[in-house]
Structure formats: structure tokens, C-alpha cells
């Protein structure tokens, strides 16, 4: 949780900043990334998510493709939040975010800038946009855990 109260105008600024200047929107330049494709039937969103894990820690997270503002900003902020976290913490962050979007009780202390999406459910058609990067990362991590028999 940021140490200050997020005002609507700050929330807008954060969303627009990540939309106009995404930090993690690129294809990996090295090997060693796991990737999954994310796309939507009700929005144009269509991108790949790339994750590099070492010893259970997410060393890097990138994405590349076409996406609307909500999808772009939420996926970019996701990358910010999970880099250098171990995968179980990343899963925890993702679950808290999905709870927030689903209007259930959630732990806001781990969501930082992702809190700007708290109102997404006001535009039901965009809930999928706000969550597709997150559910895709969850799938990559869980696939990996299944592969290693869980831990």
C-alpha cells in the first residue's frame, strides 16, 4: 500500500503513465523465459507474457502485444510487482488483486500501484482486460509448480 491516500486524479495518472510509457513492454532478448499467450474475445487485447524464474524467484517479467489502456497498465504494473518476488508471493499478490477486482475482501498491503484498478468492476466489460495478464501469469507459475511436483 502506498503510504499516501490514492486520489482519483493520481489513479488516472498512474494508469495513463503505465499505458503511455510501459516499463516492461518488450520481447525478451535472452533465452530462459517461459511464455504464454493472452487474448480476449470481447476486447482487442492480444499479447504474450514472458517470465524468467530462477530458484523459485521471478527474475524478470515482460509482455508484448496489442492491448487497451486497462490491460496495458494492469499487466505492466503486475510485472513491477512480481519481479524479485518468489513465486508463492507472486501467487499471493495475484490472488489479492483478483479478489479486489471481484469485489471481495483482499489484502491491500501487497498491491501498491495495482490499487488503481479498484473501480474496474464499474465497467464490467473491462474486467477481463484488467485481469488477463494476471491470470496468465498465474497459469505460468502454476504450470511450473505442477511440473516440479509443487512446493
Amino acid at each position, binding site marked *: 500500500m502506498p503510504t499516501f491516500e490514492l486520489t*482519483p486524479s493520481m*489513479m*488516472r495518472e498512474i*494508469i*495513463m503513465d503505465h499505458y503511455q510509457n510501459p516499463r516492461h513492454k518488450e520481447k525478451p532478448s535472452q533465452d530462459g523465459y517461459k511464455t504464454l499467450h493472452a487474448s480476449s474475445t*470481447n*476486447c*482487442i*487485447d492480444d499479447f504474450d507474457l514472458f517470465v524468467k524464474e530462477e530458484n523459485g524467484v521471478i527474475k524478470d517479467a515482460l509482455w508484448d502485444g*496489442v492491448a*487497451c*489502456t*486497462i490491460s496495458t497498465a494492469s499487466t505492466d504494473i503486475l510485472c513491477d510487482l512480481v519481479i524479485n518476488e518468489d513465486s508463492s508471493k507472486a501467487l499471493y499478490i495475484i490472488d489479492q488483486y483478483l479478489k479486489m477486482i471481484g469485489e471481495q475482501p483482499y489484502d491491500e498491503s501487497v498491491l501498491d500501484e495495482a490499487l488503481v484498478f479498484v*473501480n*474496474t468492476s*464499474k*465497467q464490467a*466489460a*473491462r474486467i477481463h*482486460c484488467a485481469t488477463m495478464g494476471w491470470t496468465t501469469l498465474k497459469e505460468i507459475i502454476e504450470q511450473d509448480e505442477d511440473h516440479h511436483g509443487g512446493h
Partner: protein
Amino acid sequence: MIDEKLIRKEFPMLSNPPLMQGHPLVWLDNASTTLKPQCVLDAVSSYYISRTSNSHRGDYDLCYSMDVETELTRKAVSKLINCSPNEVVFTSGTTDSLNRLAQSLQYSLKKGDEIIISLSEHASNVLPWFQIAKHTGAVIKYVELQKDGLITLENLRKTLSKRTKIVSLAQVGNVLGQIQPIKELVAETHKFGAIFIVDGAQSVPHMPVDVKDLDCDFLCFSGHKICGPTGIGVLYGKYKLLEDLELNSVGGGMNDKFYLDGTIKPSKAPAKFEAGTQNLEGILGLRAAIEFIMKIGLENIAEHEHKLKKYAVERIKELGNSVIYNADVKSGIVTFNINDVFAQDAATYLNSKGIACRSGQHCAKLLNDFIGTPATIRASFYFYTTKEDIDKLVDAVSHGKEFLDAYF
């Protein structure tokens, strides 16, 4: 002249509009589906209130009357598009019509035969052809589009060959709204001995369509885009072609006899394409819709929509913050983007103002590279659309930069 104010009273969704995001609904997504007048709702519910029975299935009066009703709807369709009632096959919609046609036509295709479509076709006029090309070894060719999406006779001529068996094109494009010169294209296609299929989903509801005049071999359209119910549509075919067309769906109601050795003796067209219980409430609703539309007049509808289109284009141009992709097209579709605002974000903002517009690729995923943008906003009009609806759209577009307001 259309008195849209009077007409709107006939539509429950317009006379008592539902609220969307706290605003009375502004319906500008008519290319996607249309609203239903009370007479259509009454026709549909009458099936369940006082007319429930199957057709072709019994000896009692209710059942007989359902057969009569079905034929009356065929007659209404035949008046709408100027064909014979026995050239009208009921389907679930344009997609179903095109899929069924492709299924039947695949038996006549050989490896290397050619099917011509265009980059502006809706998925339902692309994917069925991809499927049968995969199975038969036929080749898909794309006729070149002009910048406005139109197909010239010359471009079609360049694409046609002795191997062309099928040309399948939309009369009105569902993204750019361009109206193709179908009659000339058909004549040219016939010189090569190929059949011409018209995807009429966006034309039949919006302008006079005369299949005899066009001389097309098949034409498909959907009931729900012409103020009728969902799940009912039409496949028109020249009777001789329907007679020769292979079966695509079999079961009860489409055969005269079948034998132990596996032989099926199909009923005559159109019954041979109508296996199983038909969408009877849909058939009743479709007739009510067609009668309603014809009373208003297709010429009047086309004129009204074009007038609104011109008005919308002028007003959006005045704002100076948008790019319009089909300003000069004479149908009721405006396709545009607000500068620096992603189409889907803009559509969400419009939603927050109670305005229903479509954004994205509109199921014509091959077209976007052609028009040079991954997604667009589409506002589409009908005879009940008013200038006030467009004013509300323009007002929202003028504030497009503030699209994140939708979330706050």
C-alpha cells in the same frame, strides 16, 4: 420520410429505455443487432401462449396452423427479397446459412478449385470457406479492395479464373459499410461459371434487396438484424440450385423416406434443408418483423440512415479530434477513432454515458491491417435512430480524452 419519434413508441427498449450506467440507453449498435417492436414480441410470445405445437408433425388444427404460419413467413421473406417462397430456407442466422452452404458445396470442389472472398468479410464469410478449403484442397483468393473497401469489376475480373467455383461477398461491409456493386459482380462471376453468394446480413435490413435483379445464386441474412428474434435467419437459393445442393443437416422433417441400406430420399427443397423442429417462435417473429419493416419501406430506411450518417460525420469532423474511416460511404455505419484513445477505451467511456457502440475488429479480423488500425469504434444506425442519439454520441466523443472518467 420517417417519423422516428412515432416509430420509437412501438419499441419497448426505446419508449421505456433501460438505464446503462445511470443513463437511458442510446442504442447505436444496430449493425450488431436491432431492437424489437412490440408486434414482434407479441408474435413470439403468441407461440407459447396460444399456438404451441410442432410443425409437420400432427393431424390436429394447432399443428396444421403452424405449418400455415411457417409458409406465410416464407411468403413474407419472398416479398422482401423478391423470390419464390420455396426458395427460402430457414436457418439460425447468417452464420448458419453460410456454414451450411459451405458444407453442402464442399462436395462439388476439387483440389485447386478457387473460392474468392475479400479482406473485409465478416468471420462468418471467411471461416466456413477456410474449413472446406482445408478438407478439399481448394484455394482461397482475395479480391483486391479499393481504399474505401469497394470492389471494382476490374479487380474481380483479375481474380476470377477458370478454376473459380465460388465467389462469396458481403453486399454491405460490416465495418466500413461500403455497398458493393453486387449486380455487376454477379454478372462477371457467372461468365466464369462460378456461383455467387451474397452475405446480406448488413444489406437486407437496411436497403431494398432484389435477388432476381441481382441474379445472385444464394443470399443469407439474419432475423435479429431486421428487428426480428435471435436464432432465426434465411438462406435464399435459386430453386434449381437448392434442388441440386447436397444435404447439410439430416433428421426428421427433411426426408420422404429412408431405407435399411442407408439411402435417404430427401423431401423437396426447401424442406430438405430443415431437419428437426424449427425455431417456430422465431419464424412467427420474423414475419412480424418483415411486415413491420416493409410498412416503413426499405427505401425510406436507407434514406433515413444515410441522412443520419451524413449528420454524424459532419458533427464528428467539426470536433477535430477523431479520424473517420468511411466518411463518404452511403450506409448507416460510421467507423472512427478518437485521436490517441484506444477504440476499446473509447467504447468503455461511451458505455459510461449510456451509449452502446461496438469497438474492436467487428469480427472482420482481416480488415484491420488494410485500414491501418488495430481497432475502431463503430456507430451504426437504424430507422429509429434520431439526431438526438447522434448528438449524445458526439458530445461524448468530444470528451474522449477523459475516457478514464468511466472508472471514477
